[in-house]
């Protein structure tokens, strides 16, 4: 079994405020996730803004350093404590795609220059080799090399540019692609094309994906595993379809109840919105307790541990049997 993703006591603290009043924000608080598989998988990381999902992605991408703990991707420690692989191995193991495709390329450079750079780095030195590598990667996302060559970002539509972005990430044949909200800037009509691309790349290229999103419906559609996050903590983690069909953590239930789906109409009741985001980050107990219908004193005092359920999911709730 390959350890595709494993985080061990991963923490990221920020200190806000100046010399006088310092506030510690635990943007990631003791995140423990383990995904082991022989086959490539798509793991979704879902949550609202401020849940820590993007922070987690950035730690894995080494764009920010964790305060403590470690993250392992495909049996290699990529962040935190442990033997960090060389930059070359790191770049060959994982590649990112970003939320806004128009921001992912400099307006002053042709988009294929990034693809070329990537190809050159992995050892394609001659023009012919580079061109072949680019052609192959672009074909696999449904584009032709000739349509991309010499063009600047503003000459593409958002959907096309996001494909180019994926093609670039594919060139080093990474084991996993970290995709941070990759379709939120793409038109709804084109969104599924990108999502389907993930599924086909998983089959054809054997690439795993870490899909960071706030969109539960696409997460349900595409992923094998899902981790639901709230204010820097994991609240529920396990098989994606099982969790989204039968959520057990009160927060996952709230999320699912709030999404605007097309299968059933809303009941006309609202939930308490959070108006104290910064404070919730400092809660020592359960961070959802303020909004939780089940909250008791215990939730204030103790951080709920991961409770393993029969179907293999982990629910971080003291009262999971009551939900």
């Amino acid at each position, binding site marked *: 079994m390959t350890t595709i993703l494993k985080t061990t006591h991963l923490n990221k603290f920020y200190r806000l405020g100046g010399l006088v009043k310092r506030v510690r924000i635990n943007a990631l608080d003791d995140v423990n996730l383990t995904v082991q598989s022989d086959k490539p998988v798509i793991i979704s990381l879902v949550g609202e803004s401020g849940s820590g999902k993007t922070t987690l992605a950035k730690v894995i*991408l080494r*764009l920010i350093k964790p305060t403590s703990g470690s993250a392992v991707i495909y049996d290699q420690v990529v962040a935190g404590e442990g033997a960090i692989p060389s930059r070359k191995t790191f*770049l060959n193991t994982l*590649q*990112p795609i*970003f*939320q*806004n495709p128009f*921001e*992912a*390329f*400099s*307006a*002053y*450079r042709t988009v294929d220059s*990034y*693809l070329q*750079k*990537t190809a*050159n*780095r*992995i050892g394609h030195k001659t023009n012919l080799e580079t061109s072949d590598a680019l052609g192959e990667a672009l074909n696999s996302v449904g584009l032709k090399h000739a349509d991309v060559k010499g063009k*600047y970002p*503003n000459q593409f539509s958002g959907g096309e540019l996001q494909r180019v*972005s994926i093609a*670039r*990430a594919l060139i080093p044949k990474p084991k996993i692609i970290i995709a941070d909200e990759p379709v939120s800037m793409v038109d709804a009509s084109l969104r599924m094309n990108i999502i389907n691309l993930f599924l086909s790349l998983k089959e054809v290229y054997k690439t795993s994906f870490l899909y960071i999103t706030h969109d539960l419906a696409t997460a349900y559609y595409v992923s094998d595993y899902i981790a639901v996050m709230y204010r820097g903590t994991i609240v529920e983690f396990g098989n994606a379809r099982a969790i989204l069909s039968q959520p057990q953590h009160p927060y996952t239930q709230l999320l699912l109840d709030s999404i605007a789906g097309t299968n059933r109409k809303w009941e006309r009741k609202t939930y308490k919105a959070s108006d104290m985001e910064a404070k919730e980050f400092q809660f020592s107990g359960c961070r959802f307790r303020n909004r939780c219908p089940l909250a008791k004193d215990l939730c204030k005092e103790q951080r709920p541990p991961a409770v393993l359920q029969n179907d293999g999911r982990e629910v971080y709730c003291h009262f999971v049997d009551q939900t």
Partner: protein
Amino acid sequence: MKLNLRLKIGITILAIFILGSLILPFFNHVDPTKQGIFFKNLRPSLQHLLGTNSQGQDIFWFLIYSIRNSLFLGISVSIFTTLIATLVGLSAGYIGGWYDRLIMILTDSVISIPSFPILIVLGALVRGNTSFTVVGIILVIFGWAWGARTIRSMALSIREREFINTAIFSGSNRLEVIFNEIFPYVYAYIVVGFINSILFVINTEAALAVIGLSKVEIPTLGSIIFWALSYNAFFTGQYLWVVAPVLATVLLFLGLFLTSTGYNQMFALRRGHS
């Protein structure tokens, strides 16, 4: 590339000044600083386009040499200030951390501390044995900070943009990121900053010269006024001695300013379309 009105006017003025002060001295064979070569206080004529002054110097030729020297000083000092500003600004903005904080303290100090009093002290100390090079070096010391500050804040905001990460994950190293990704975005400002620096240098030297604290033996746009004031040009009615350099300065500065803002406008527009 479509030139806007500001840029057109600015470049025209600059071209006239630069070409004029470079080419015209070839047609003159008399050192304009030498006194008593011509009759004193002549009115403007074909021989002496702006007349002569009370020291028997030809005002026109004195002015041409002044413009040439001021431009030379401005451009050569600005090459150094722009180079320093670019290197310091880009590195501080990209590297960040304590290095950036140190650089910021330095730039903020140079900007906030009034340069003129310190220049006056320096001028007083080296008076008499100063040289044009020393004046230039002092101006470099005071001239780089504004540009560095601006470039640093631009680099800082560009560093946060997503395409920097694309470049990093494509395998670019730090230098490649700075020059391929960040530099294109600050390039236009560097040109603008260069022109603004020329303005600053000519202005500061002239200001020092007007009160006699630069190397006034060398004709510049400031020293010509210094001599005119020293010889009481106003009292003796030699208005041209002052008015000519004043007009030349105003025109030259307007030309520099219009070029820099015009270029900025053009670039902003082009950025909007591309």
